């Protein structure tokens, strides 16, 4: 089997879409936060919390979509905490973000152990099942690759244009983007910058949590410690890769997921020639390389990392 055969394989394309889904949610979430001027390094922990919360909801007898909503709410709660610290108190976004990640991940491990003390093998739930889109899934190849996914994947794809529309075509989106570019101008319009920023962080964190929930409710059916495994940090790189644009974020997530799916399959080809650790390094190295190539064209939101204090001149 060589590289070309991989591309001719339906499984590769289906896997790409599957791997991309949690990245799409979380990257959009981070993008919303950063567009409002807040770097949210809590992403890794919030994804872990979302993975635990959504799974636990279903394990306790709730239904799947209820679990997704619950995960989003829990993620939003941590976003609110982040916003109180960074937006209202104007504390360092780096420090608070790391703090939120430490808190959210340790708390999700603690709660998981507390609720299920004796679980030696991770208990399982009935996760989202594959839904074959009528008619479309009958198309040869394309149908098998793109239209036999779980509902959460379709949801991830559907949410991208919604976020794009929200950010670029609605007054709220304009306020969010301006809060990250020129908060004083937003203030001059009589809009509460702090409320706009906090709202963006809460909503963005909800998205991140759903990204985490995808892992336990769609990709797998159980919660493992360390299952997020740096995906959150990769999403932060993806936001830069996407130049803070939702459509490019989708492209970035798909490209990245494609490479990830490719490395798993290339690993099987190479056999023992190249140790598996080097393949596992690829996602992280590629993120760094992508940032290097895009560093010159990266146009950060101008007020990113800058706390806004009313009445203070910048």
């Amino acid at each position, binding site marked *: 089997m060589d590289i070309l055969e991989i591309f001719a394989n339906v499984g590769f394309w289906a896997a790409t879409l599957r791997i991309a889904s949690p990245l799409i949610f979380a990257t959009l979430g981070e993008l919303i936060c950063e567009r409002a001027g807040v*770097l949210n*390094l809590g992403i890794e922990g919030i994804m872990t919390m979302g993975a635990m919360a959504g799974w636990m909801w279903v394990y306790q007898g709730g239904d799947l979509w209820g679990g997704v909503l619950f995960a989003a709410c829990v993620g939003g709660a941590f976003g609110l*905490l982040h916003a109180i*610290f960074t937006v*209202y*108190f*104007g*504390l*360092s976004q*780096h*420090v*608070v973000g*790391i*703090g*939120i990640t*430490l*808190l959210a*991940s*340790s*708390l999700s*491990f*603690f709660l998981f*152990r*507390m609720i299920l*003390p004796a679980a030696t093998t991770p208990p399982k739930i009935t996760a989202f099942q594959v839904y074959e889109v009528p008619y479309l899934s009958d198309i040869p190849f394309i149908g098998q690759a793109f239209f036999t996914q779980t509902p959460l994947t379709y949801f991830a794809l559907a949410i991208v244009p919604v976020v794009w529309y929200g950010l670029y075509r609605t007054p709220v989106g304009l306020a969010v983007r301006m809060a990250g570019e020129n908060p004083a101008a937003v203030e001059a319009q009589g809009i509460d910058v702090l409320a706009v920023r906090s709202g963006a962080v809460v909503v963005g964190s909800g998205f991140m949590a759903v990204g985490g929930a995808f892992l336990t409710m769609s990709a797998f059916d159980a919660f493992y410690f360390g299952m997020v*495994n*740096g995906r959150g*940090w*990769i999403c*932060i*790189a993806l936001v*830069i890769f996407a130049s803070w644009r939702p459509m490019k974020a989708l492209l970035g997530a798909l490209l990245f997921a494609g490479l990830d799916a490719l490395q798993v399959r290339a690993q099987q080809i190479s056999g023992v020639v190249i*140790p598996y*650790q*080097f393949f*596992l*390094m690829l996602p*992280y*190295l590629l*993120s*760094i390389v992508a*940032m*290097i190539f895009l*560093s*010159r064209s*990266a146009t950060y939101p101008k007020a990113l990392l800058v706390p806004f*204090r*009313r*009445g203070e001149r910048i």
Partner: protein
Amino acid sequence: MRFEPREHVSVLAAVVAPVAGVAAALLLCSGLILWTGESVGEAYWLLLKGAFGTKFALTETLSRATPLILTGLAAAVAFRAKFWNIGAEGQLYCGALAVTWLGTGMITLHPVLMIPLLFLVGALGGGAALLVPVILKNRLKVDEVVTTLLLNFVILLLVSYLLEGPWKDPMLMGWPQAAPIIDEGVLPQLVAKTRLHLGLIVAVAAALIVWLVMTFTVWGYEIRAVGHNAAAAAFSGIKINRTIIRTALLSGGLAGMAGVTEVAGLKGYLTLDLSPGFGYAGIAVAMLAQLHPLGILASALFLSAIYVGADSMSRGVNIPTYIADVLVATSMLAVVLSVMLARFRIRFS
């Protein structure tokens, strides 16, 4: 709601603020303990006893504090210059790699030479791990937060490869680990039959030296100036890029030394589970100490007491050990907030 800087922050307030933050965190976490159905008083008492109750517990706490002091210093130095090094975990492992490379038979010297040499290569290894992020930041303005974070994973995979491949100790079956450090390189025990080793003295000395450098030297002044106001520092003739590189090497070097204390002091050989997140915990250590090198001695001791104490507490009562990480994270956030409230006055208008 507005914040006004207080004209005068007393030394007392600067000390009371973090203590109050920690107290608030302990109070918040009692809620979790209550929910487990155990008694809060008993849980905290067991935690305290587990950390300081016996001579053995005390030495365990001190030996756990050793790497935390070093990674805490690593974070503090970097954050002072607003260089956001979140990769101390990876740099620790790079230090551990360097010390394993040199200390497992490559050369043999008298311990008096061998041990300082091991710390030197460990520091160089840790510093080298930060070279790529710092050069990318200076030359191309690539965000160091993401690069240092992602390199943690790359370095850990490199360690995993070396331990399963070329560096695997051929004499051992089972869990992959590297060959042991030769006897001349092993850090001597400070108290017989415990795990407390020379690394503690090195770490405390490092804190003192970092404090002296940061407070009384031109280098330290430049690091602080760049962190405080880079534009003003550049205007006054400080070379920003050079200062950032110097800061990064110092920061990475300190984290690398934590790798040395763990490999050559605590374990005697390199394993993949060498650090249970000392690099990330170092950030909490630094923030609890408000980035003050001497304060880090206290905050590292506090964190290690929580970790060691929680281990023993969870054997006594039915509370998962993850409570330790929850306590650390809550303390960090609470202290960041309480320190800010000590410096600013809130005005409602």
